[in-house]
């Protein structure tokens, strides 16, 4: 870097590259350098807080991906694997889930209330989901929700609606923990949807067994104006296989994950690749973000990562990939609905109990109308999400519906997060109440691609 560039303030610390320093600015910058120097530390003026182990609570700390297990390779059969059949539509408008779905929702709701919510605040701080919680989530069958029955899962037919209802119920507990718990199942669902016989036989037994691996669906990349349909990560054909290069972001529990599904451009078209964590050339870096922190978000770097020909999941013409993007967006919509419901559940008693000027603040229209709008827009988000999910489950084109659901959930979901904090005033800004966390979590909608899938 040239001297000129070092003297320029822009491009770091959130400064635009247009910023210029004047003489006072140079003096202040120099003083700040001094204040940061080791000299002060060496004479014991400052407490040292170095951490030698990998942590997801800080960025800039790279490590190799988890050593991971050896998945017992079954090769050869490249025929399409088992697929769950599309749900049969009755042709009637209906907002009542099936009995099976309702039972599932009841179980997950209890889990979200009893286990997820109480763990949420600490998981946000440590950027990690408690092990017990993740274990319990396996017991209620989250990883195999989207896996066809004949492959050891529990879905008799396409399970997009059940997936949406479960994600919503979980996020009512906490979005970050919901993402952490749903991530392995999302990879299993992807294998169920697009895997060949060989891929399903190689990987699914791990997900349907007792020792379910952490796994991550990595589609997002750290670039401005990121277009998920044109990933900068590339896959080049080399010999019998592919070589992958690029960086993925918002990778859930990347440091523990034993299997990744990575989005990369192949011959100009986006495609999905199965990458085991023990593959050479993978590096993971903690990437704590504004919210969804309990999901231990990381960046995954791929440097000349060599995979076999059978690592390609689904087709190479972008169809499976696009479907995957839509289903992931659908899952994020469901998470937004659940979190929005948590906000409404929380602010309703609060504004009724909190008094100002001699009466509950809910007796004022300015407050009450905000609550009414939360309720109206939340139900709007829910209905759009359900419509897209029902179409997906029935095997219909749902590209329009999921786009509209995502737009609404991003806009109105954020509004709900914002108003949730506002309704509590200063109390909403402090961590004694969860609304500030939901505010941060809801900003993820419309940004996140991949990670979760229904």
């Amino acid at each position, binding site marked *: 870097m040239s001297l000129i560039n070092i003297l320029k303030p822009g491009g770091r610390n959130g400064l635009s590259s247009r910023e210029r320093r004047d003489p006072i600015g140079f003096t202040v910058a120099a003083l700040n350098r001094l204040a940061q120097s080791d000299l002060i530390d060496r004479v014991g003026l400052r407490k040292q807080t170095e951490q030698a182990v990998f942590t997801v609570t800080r960025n800039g700390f790279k490590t190799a991906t988890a050593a991971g297990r050896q998945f017992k390779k079954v090769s050869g059969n490249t025929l399409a694997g088992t697929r769950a059949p599309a749900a049969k539509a009755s042709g009637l408008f209906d907002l009542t889930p099936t009995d099976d779905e309702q039972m599932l929702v009841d179980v997950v709701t209890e889990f979200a209330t009893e286990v997820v919510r109480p763990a949420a605040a600490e998981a946000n701080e440590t950027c990690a989901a408690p092990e017990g919680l993740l274990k319990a989530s396996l017991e209620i069958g989250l990883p195999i929700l989207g896996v066809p029955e004949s492959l050891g899962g529990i879905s008799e037919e396409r399970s997009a609606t059940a997936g949406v209802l479960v994600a919503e119920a979980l996020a009512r507990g906490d979005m970050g923990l919901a993402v952490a718990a749903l991530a392995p199942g999302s990879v299993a669902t992807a294998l169920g949807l697009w895997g060949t016989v060989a891929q399903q036989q190689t990987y699914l037994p791990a997900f349907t067994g007792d020792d379910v691996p952490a796994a991550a669906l990595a589609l997002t990349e750290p670039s401005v*104006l990121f277009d998920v349909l044109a990933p900068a990560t590339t896959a080049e054909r080399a010999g019998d296989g592919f070589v992958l290069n690029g960086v993925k972001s918002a990778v859930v529990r990347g440091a523990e994950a034993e299997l990744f599904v990575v989005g990369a451009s192949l011959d100009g078209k986006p495609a999905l690749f199965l990458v085991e964590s023990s593959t050479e050339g993978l590096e993971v870096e903690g990437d704590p973000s504004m919210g969804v922190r309990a999901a231990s978000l990381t960046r995954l770097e791929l440097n000349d990562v060599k995979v076999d020909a059978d690592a390609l999941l689904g087709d190479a013409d972008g169809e499976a990939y696009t479907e995957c993007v839509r289903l992931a967006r659908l899952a994020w919509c469901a998470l937004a609905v659940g979190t929005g419901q948590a906000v409404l559940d929380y602010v309703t008693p609060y504004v009724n109990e909190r008094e100002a000027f001699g009466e509950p603040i809910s007796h004022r229209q300015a407050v009450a109308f905000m609550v009414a709008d939360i309720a109206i827009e939340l139900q*709007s988000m829910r209905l*759009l999400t359900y419509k897209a999910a029902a179409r997906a489950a029935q095997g219909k084109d749902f*590209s329009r519906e999921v786009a509209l659901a995502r737009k609404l959930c991003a*806009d109105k979901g954020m509004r709900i997060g914002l108003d949730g904090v506002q309704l509590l005033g200063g109390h909403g800004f402090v961590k004694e109440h969860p609304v500030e966390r939901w505010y941060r979590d809801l900003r993820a909608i419309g940004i996140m691609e991949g990670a979760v899938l229904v």
Partner: protein
Amino acid sequence: MLNLETPKKHRMLIDQAHQVAMNMLRPISRKYDLAEHEYPKELDMLAAMIDGLEESGASEGAGATGVRRDETAAETGNKNGSNLSSVLSVAEMCWGDVGLMLTFPRQGLGNSAIASVATDAQLERFKGTWASMAITEPAFGSDSAQVSTTAVLDGDDYVINGEKIFVTSGERSDSIVVWATLDKSLGRAAIKSFVVTKDMPGVKVERCEHKLGIRASDTAVITFTDVRVPKENLLGSPEIDVKQGFAGAMATFDNTRPLVAAMAVGCARASLDLTRDLLEQAGVTIDYDRPAQLQSAAAAKFLQLEADWEAAQLLTMQAAWMADNRKPNSLEASMAKAKAGRVASDVTLSCVELAGSVGYSEAELLEKWARDSKILDIFEGTQQIQQLIVARRILGLTSAELK
């Protein structure tokens, strides 16, 4: 099982409504917007057609009478009935023209009120009437407990005195459902509705209003001077039940609000459909898969409008579906009305903006729809009244606590 598609069984009815809207309403849409107060004679034939459909049962009870709740129907799982088919066909007609739809003969809001609360005997007696609805008075709008038109029992008749404004189809209808109080000192509970026919002495249409939109529909001022109405024309119970209060009269709104929401949904879709086409001709195609921020600002705006519109449509269907399945729906009806009302304004006004002076000019209908839509966020309960209702329900507050 979750399914939020238009029911298959209603598809044909909606397709028919679409053809009528396209081929009958659209061609005369601008004509009666310009010729305010002129009776759209073309609609008489349409009315005969709708009657024919209703008689044959092919309409699934769509239209104003579709809001009647069938209390005797057996409980057999999920039902898609006349409430749902009504909102869907009303939306389709309003995609054609809201003003014209509001002046369909024999499809007045009064007809909906009669269908909602009349006894079977009354239903039979008022069959075939074109009934408008008269609630608002010069001294009040949203605060409908302030009704000061009086009804005094005298022998076998009630004698009605007062002035009503904003009576949709007040001039063209043959009867009026009038809200009047039996005893103002007893408050809301004393407010009852009466079917007053135009031929009764003392009923006078004073004038029709000149309006921002829905100009094809007449909006009348009507005075009632010593109008004698047979007591059998009182809708609902004549008892003043202070405990029940306003509930009886207000129940009509649970049924009519989804219909007004449907009008907003239909009007807004007209704007969206045309604007999508105009944008495509201008080289902007909406891509549902690519993030909005990577598309043109016009496409991103369109996506937002369409998402809001879809929400209005689904909330409206939800409210009607609940009525069909005999679930209480006043919260959902108000949600639908609130969302659809504001979305219709946002959509129609934004579409004018997107289309520039093409949208602003009378050469296209976009500017008309942007005028027509405004009333839909006002009548049958304004945006603010809907928010009050939703807020009270969610927060569990009374009207004394949350004013």
